[in-house]
């Protein structure tokens, strides 16, 4: 752990910004590709690659409608905070051997805290426009989020046990021989469920969902909508990178340089999340809450037990 070098502040900002910009763009392209291939529409590589840029250009020219008596501070804060938390989460994840933006000793707890604060940002998004469907969606999301919140913490703590450290860099190093996905087979699927929850996609598409006429985004237009979508993709990148680092061995891998392995694994998780988003139907919040407390949480305990026994 000692040889990990902290990047200098300006370089760190550049690195985080680059990771997020590239990541958000790639994640948006993945969404287009996933949608078109599942829908059976023609897939032109050039068109798909330019799609996010075109959408961004169109939305930036669209009016951002102001609703009646919104909570304007929180309305602006919601996407900004969501994006900022994604950036904060990225900083604690090692990007390649020896390179991590902020090698804090409590990296995994900080990641969990960023995820918990993301719930607040998402709730703001539903609360602030002063619109009934958005409020219902935000409220419903919080109920779901409180249910997966514990799950995420147990799964991450279990991953920290073999590393004997809360630093994500140490967790990656502990996977030199055996990746956590094999050592703790329950961890990865549980963490993917959490990732789907935080990015409200696929089965947990309970925020911006069609059954509430767009839910939390029902009043969003123009830049407001663009900012929210950007933040959501940034959060997906943060969770994909964390999944790659904590469960898929991070930079470990043959032949290719470590940074490239990390990028490839992150991309694989982003692609998986993108396809799950398109391919899985939404389940109702009530059912998920039941499932989370009744089934998934016991599995998380089992996972913790496996990790503990493995560490003895």
């Amino acid at each position, binding site marked *: 752990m000692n040889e990990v070098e902290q990047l200098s502040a300006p370089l760190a900002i550049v690195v985080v910004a680059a990771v997020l910009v590239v990541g958000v763009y790639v994640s948006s392209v993945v969404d287009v590709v*996933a*949608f*078109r291939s*599942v*829908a*059976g*529409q*023609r897939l*032109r590589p*050039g*068109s798909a690659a*330019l*799609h996010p840029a*075109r*959408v961004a250009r*169109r939305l930036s*020219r*669209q*009016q*951002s*409608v102001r609703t009646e008596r919104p909570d304007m501070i929180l309305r602006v804060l919601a996407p900004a905070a969501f994006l900022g938390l994604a950036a904060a989460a990225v900083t604690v994840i090692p990007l390649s051997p020896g390179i991590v933006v902020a090698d804090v000793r409590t990296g995994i707890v900080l990641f969990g805290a960023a995820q918990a604060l993301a719930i607040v940002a998402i709730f703001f998004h539903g609360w602030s426009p002063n619109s*009934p469907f958005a409020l*219902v969606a935000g*409220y*419903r999301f919080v109920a779901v989020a409180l249910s997966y919140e514990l799950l995420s913490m147990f799964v991450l703590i279990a991953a920290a046990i073999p590393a004997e450290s809360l630093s994500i860099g140490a967790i990656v190093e502990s996977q030199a021989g055996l990746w956590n996905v094999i050592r703790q087979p329950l961890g990865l699927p549980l963490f993917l469920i959490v990732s789907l929850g935080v990015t409200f996609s*696929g*089965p947990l*598409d309970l925020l911006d*969902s*069609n*059954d*509430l*006429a*767009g839910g939390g*985004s*029902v*009043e*969003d*237009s*123009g830049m407001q*909508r663009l900012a929210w979508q950007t933040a959501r993709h940034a959060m997906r990148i943060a969770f994909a990178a964390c999944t790659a680092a904590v469960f898929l061995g991070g930079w470990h891998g043959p032949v290719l340089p470590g940074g490239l392995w990390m990028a490839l694994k992150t991309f694989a998780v982003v692609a998986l999340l993108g396809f799950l988003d*398109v*391919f*899985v*139907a*939404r*389940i*109702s*919040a*009530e*059912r998920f809450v039941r499932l989370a407390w009744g089934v998934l949480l016991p599995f998380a305990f089992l996972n913790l037990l496996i990790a503990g026994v493995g560490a003895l």
Partner: protein
Amino acid sequence: MAVTPVEVFVAAGSDRWHDVQALRAHELVRLVPTPRHATVLLVAGTIPASAREALDRVHDQLPHPRAVATWDEIVAGNDVVDAVASEIVGCAHRVMADPSTSSPGRLADEEPNDWRGVGPFGQGGEGMMGGTPYGRAMAMTADDRDGLSLDRLELRLGPFLGQLPGGLVADVALQGEVIQSIEFACAGSKSFVTADRAVPVARRLLWLSHALHVQGLDAFAVGAARLARRSARLDDDPGLARDFASLRRRMRWTGLRSALRSVGDRDGRDTLARWSAHLDAIAASLDGADSRPVSADGSMPITAAELAEMITGLALTDAVSTIIGFDIDVPAMTTAPVEA
């Protein structure tokens, strides 16, 4: 040339609502769930006088630059959907190129009336609750299912809500996400579900397309809408039955079954059973290699009052799923004579 799809919000009268769903099949058009996301407002079918003001309000909710297209004014060639789609794309391009042509607001942007506070601190009602300070009632507490008295929010849903069948109007009272009471605006107690009646297979597929969209499966909705367009064409399409079977097989993997199971139980049948009946009917019709009207057996007709009773106490999501599970025949509902 590659372009991004134009985002369209549909305000459809109940007579055109199913037809409009076919637009989901078109690559250059994307139907969005809220007017705030749309560039073009597509007005289709007969808009009753009672829905005029709602239409104007929806129109004003579109962000600038915005444009309006009207389905029934478009002179169609041999394919209405293509004609409408190209008109929509044209509209959108014109207004994007010259934002000054954006459709102006139809209603005045103001409160129904000024703030009317009555309390000592200028609040709207007594004890900081209730009253109608802007001409809109504030929420008041009412008993709920958990024995607490929480705020009760009265809303009117429809007639142009993306997730509900076009023209359907319902007055609901919500506490949190739970529907405490719902009343459909309709004439009489005539049954308004079509599942027991024979309808063309294309219409059933269009229903499926919208229903998949509501369940969060937009990509599958595109597939269903494409099948609907193919089945609507006159020429015989032998691959249709096979492609539908393939769509249905893929739908099995989406978790739709567990999402719909035991939602909206009535007489031992849940929403999943209703979906199965619809899908079986489509499959039977397509296997017969013709588009004869078919009826889905087993689906009981239901009246507006019965449906309202069924979904009272459900969460909003489950209520929407339940309503969509019945292929509601809104025209029959609104024009039905009052029965004694």
